């Protein structure tokens, strides 16, 4: 039987679900369970790859599952932004699946079966979001993603974990039902459709004075984009085991948020309509403020994962800002940043996890001199950090480049300043970690919990499965620099709808 593209779309959503069941059935056999997890991730990536050529060639394969209410169907349509997001999420899942094994076993975590099951479920939801053909389908998978990641955040079941998970669920469900659902139904009442259409569906259907309000309902309703002041859930989610922070809270969940933001901007509002009405101007300023404030908070955090979380909050607003600029180049930069930031940030998180597995250290001030002991981990961390700062020849350079071009194009030169300032802040809070690791000698009296580290030096890395994945993604940061053209070509028809016709 030949695998058609439409079958592949359905399978890509179902396959991780099947994986969830199989993982559940392998409860008592850890090796089998983790083999299922890796095989599922490979198969999923293969499926996504089979869809890719058609989408690169300009096709928009679609498949409808069923109609829930008249006019509202659960259906999928693969377009460039979704293709990019699916590639990023499924590709990085493979790396994370490997990393999970090293990390979870290295830490002797409890409830590992539940962990792997929820992980697979979350990926299924992410793919559903990526391929959704309308806002309704997207919303359904958005909520599935929230609920399936809740047990992952509460994983340790300590009081801290429960409190964090409560904040996580409270903010994500609260914003999505409180604002996003209202926005969606409002859109439905106005236009009678929720399908994603290039150029938007709202033009001419809504009173322009109400447009900023509707945009606000969407922008705050997409809580996963962590736009301030609804960003608190992301630092709270850091109580989760590090693989969760790495894949979900640097890639799948947060990117689902900004991806939705881009989708709404491009396919519901339409960037031309936004540009004409200036409805997104306020969002641009808010995103800019979010970038800078989050960066400054990041500098004050001593806990490594908390610092990375605030860095993520800041970087996510790059993408929101790219959409809010309402120019083609801004969308291009935002879309590219989905891939570039994902690759960089997952590297940083996996390094943080590797440090934790090897030394059980979580605070940056305890990490003096660690770079000499864990050179591979710190090397990968350095590369990831440089990519996020936006230094060539690393992937992050391109997205920042296009975002700045977009700012210039929109006539908001001050936004270029925001990006520059943010890069400098990135240097301060990310490179200082690396500098401490390499240049500050380890303290003579090892702090509590670091007894395992030999202060005399000698390489003492985390288990191979914890170190290899960040090294791979660090290499990925280089590769993305050279393949940014492919992403540009992929996104081009979406960002420049006029030119494509």
């Amino acid at each position: 039987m030949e695998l058609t593209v439409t079958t592949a779309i359905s399978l890509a959503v179902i396959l991780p679900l099947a994986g969830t069941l199989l993982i559940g059935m392998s409860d008592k056999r850890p090796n089998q369970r983790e083999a299922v997890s890796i095989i599922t991730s490979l198969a999923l990536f293969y499926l996504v790859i089979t869809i890719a050529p058609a989408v690169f060639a300009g096709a928009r394969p679609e498949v409808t599952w069923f109609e829930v209410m008249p006019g509202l169907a659960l259906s999928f349509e693969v377009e460039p932004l979704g293709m990019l997001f699916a590639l990023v999420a499924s590709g990085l899942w493979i790396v994370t699946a490997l990393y999970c094994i090293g990390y979870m076993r290295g830490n002797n975590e409890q409830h590992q079966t539940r962990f792997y099951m929820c992980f697979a479920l979350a990926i299924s939801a992410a793919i559903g979001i990526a391929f959704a053909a309308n806002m309704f389908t997207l919303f359904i998978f958005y909520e599935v993603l929230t609920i399936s990641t809740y047990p992952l955040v509460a994983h340790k079941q300590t009081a801290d974990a429960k409190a964090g998970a409560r904040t996580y669920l409270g903010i994500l469900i609260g914003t999505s039902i409180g604002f996003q659902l209202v926005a969606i139904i409002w859109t439905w009442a106005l236009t009678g459709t929720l399908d994603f259409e290039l150029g938007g569906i709202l033009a001419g259907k809504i009173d322009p004075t109400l447009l900023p309000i509707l945009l606000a309902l969407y922008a705050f309703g997409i809580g996963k984009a962590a736009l301030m002041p609804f960003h608190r859930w992301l630092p709270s989610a850091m109580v989760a085991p590090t693989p969760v922070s790495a894949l979900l809270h640097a890639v799948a969940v947060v990117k689902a948020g900004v991806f939705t933001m881009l989708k709404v901007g491009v396919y519901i509002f339409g960037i031309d309509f936004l540009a004409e009405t200036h409805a997104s101007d306020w969002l641009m300023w808010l995103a800019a403020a979010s970038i800078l404030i989050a960066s400054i908070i990041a500098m004050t955090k001593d806990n490594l994962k908390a610092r990375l979380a605030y860095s993520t909050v800041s970087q996510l607003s790059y993408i929101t800002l790219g959409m809010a600029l309402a120019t083609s180049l801004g969308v291009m930069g935002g879309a590219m940043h989905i891939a570039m930031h994902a690759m960089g940030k997952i590297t940083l998180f996996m390094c943080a996890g590797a440090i934790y597995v090897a030394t059980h250290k979580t605070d940056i001030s305890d990490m003096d001199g660690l770079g000499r002991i864990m050179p591979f981990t710190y090397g990968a961390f350095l590369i990831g950090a440089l990519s996020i700062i936006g230094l060539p020849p690393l992937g992050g350079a391109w997205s920042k480049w296009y975002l700045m071009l977009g700012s210039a194009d929109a006539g908001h030169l001050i936004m270029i300043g925001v990006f520059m300032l943010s890069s400098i802040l990135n240097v301060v809070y990310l490179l200082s970690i690396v500098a401490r690791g390499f240049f500050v000698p380890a303290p003579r009296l090892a702090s509590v919990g670091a007894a395992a580290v030999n202060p005399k030096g000698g390489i003492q890395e985390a288990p191979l499965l914890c170190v290899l994945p960040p090294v791979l993604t660090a290499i990925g940061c280089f590769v993305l620099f050279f393949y940014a053209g492919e992403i540009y070509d992929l996104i081009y028809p979406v960002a420049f709808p006029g030119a494509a016709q």
Partner: protein
Amino acid sequence: MLSSILAHAPALQTVIPLVAAPLCVLIGQRNIAWGITVLASLLTACVSVFLMMETLDGSVISYHLGGWAPPLGIEYRVDIVNAFVLFIVGMTGALVAIYARASIEREIDPDLHVYFYTAYLLCLTGLLGVTITGDAFNVFVFLEISSLSTYTLVALGAGRDQRALTASYNYLIMGTIGATFFVIGIGFLYMMTGTLNMADLAERIANMGDNRVIRVAFVFILVGIGLKLAMFPLHLWLPNAYSYAPSVVSVFLAATATKVAVYVLLRFAFTVFGFDYPFQAATLSWVLMPLALIAMFAMSIVAIFQSDLKRMLAYSSVAQIGYILLGVSMLSKPGLMAGIIHLFNHAVTKGALFMAVGIFVLRYGSSRIEDLRGAGRTMPWTAAAFVAGGLGLIGVPLTTGFISKWYLITAAFESNDWWLALLIVGSSLIAVFYVWRVVEALYLAEPEGKPAVSSAPLSMVLPTWALVLASLYFGIDAELTSKAASTAADLLIEATQFDSPAEPAKAVPGAIGAAANGE
């Protein structure tokens, strides 16, 4: 043969459980009584499905009890509005009957089991009768049959908790006041029009124009029914009745009794008084809507602070009735449709939740949240059913709760009441709090001590999951429910349908005498 039986389907709807009820006492064997109850309720459910299928296209079945033509005789009049409610009552009735046997095992003294089944069947008869009849006074009679048997059913909870007696007594007083108000209202109507047939009433009231007596009648009926359907602030009987009644009774009442009362309100408000009756419109939008909104918020917040699961669900029910009334009080077709669809969706969701709680009560002997810590591991299926139902209450996509909220919010936007939309989502967010407290207790808390808990009996788990699956199915494919609700809303709004004579093709003279008529 079958077709000649089906011609009498409207009568069979109430006659089957009515005849089965005394049989239970006469035989006096609790196992046989259970068998009779299950059989009777299954047959009843089949009849209700048949009636729903017959009327889904908007047609009306008029059935003359005993062959006496209305307005003198009693007419059973089935259109999609009440067929939909009959369907809800019939289906839950059957599931509850199956569920009951294992559930009452520990909660009710075995000697009283036959009386339980009798009272249950009578209650079922009453609720079905209220729904199916087209005669205003007959509504009162059936309402009393169902209410009196409900007081008995609630009082049977005394085996587990003595407070059931006061709860039942309280309900008796309140319920009687409600019924009295209701019958006074009907009296006024009879005085003015000289008829009790609803179709006839509608016609004569429409010709009479606005009139102070009609207004008084309307208010009496509204308050009387408001007590029965636990409209805020007339809900005070409900939390105690639901908490102390035997679990299976809570399931049945939560899923059906209040829904039937809402139906009566719809029928009287829109069919009898007419959709465009200005006094009613003012009352609904200036009195009912604020009360519905207060119920949605106040009762949800109260639910957060309950330590007993049944009580929490009871308060949540009052809040959910607020949603239904809100939809109704919007006075538009989308709003009405949202209210009707939530009638069904809430019945399914709340039924599943109470059933899950009933299983907890059976195994843990308690429905207090703190006693159920760690139940997610000891009773995975039941706990999962509870979570699925809870997600439905919140209105998470792919559950029926989401469909209801979707229609309700759409209705708010279509009448340009965007602030209503915000209030609706605001109150459903409160549900996140009270549901999640339970989820954390079930899954994340460590159990105190070592409760020796065996898995639940299949006869309870299966009906629970039947309702859970129904709530998921109708959340994924809402075609049937939205079609039924949409047709029902159309019928209620077109008051003119009663001006035309009933279709003669379907009017069948009944062979069986009137069930009860106090005229």
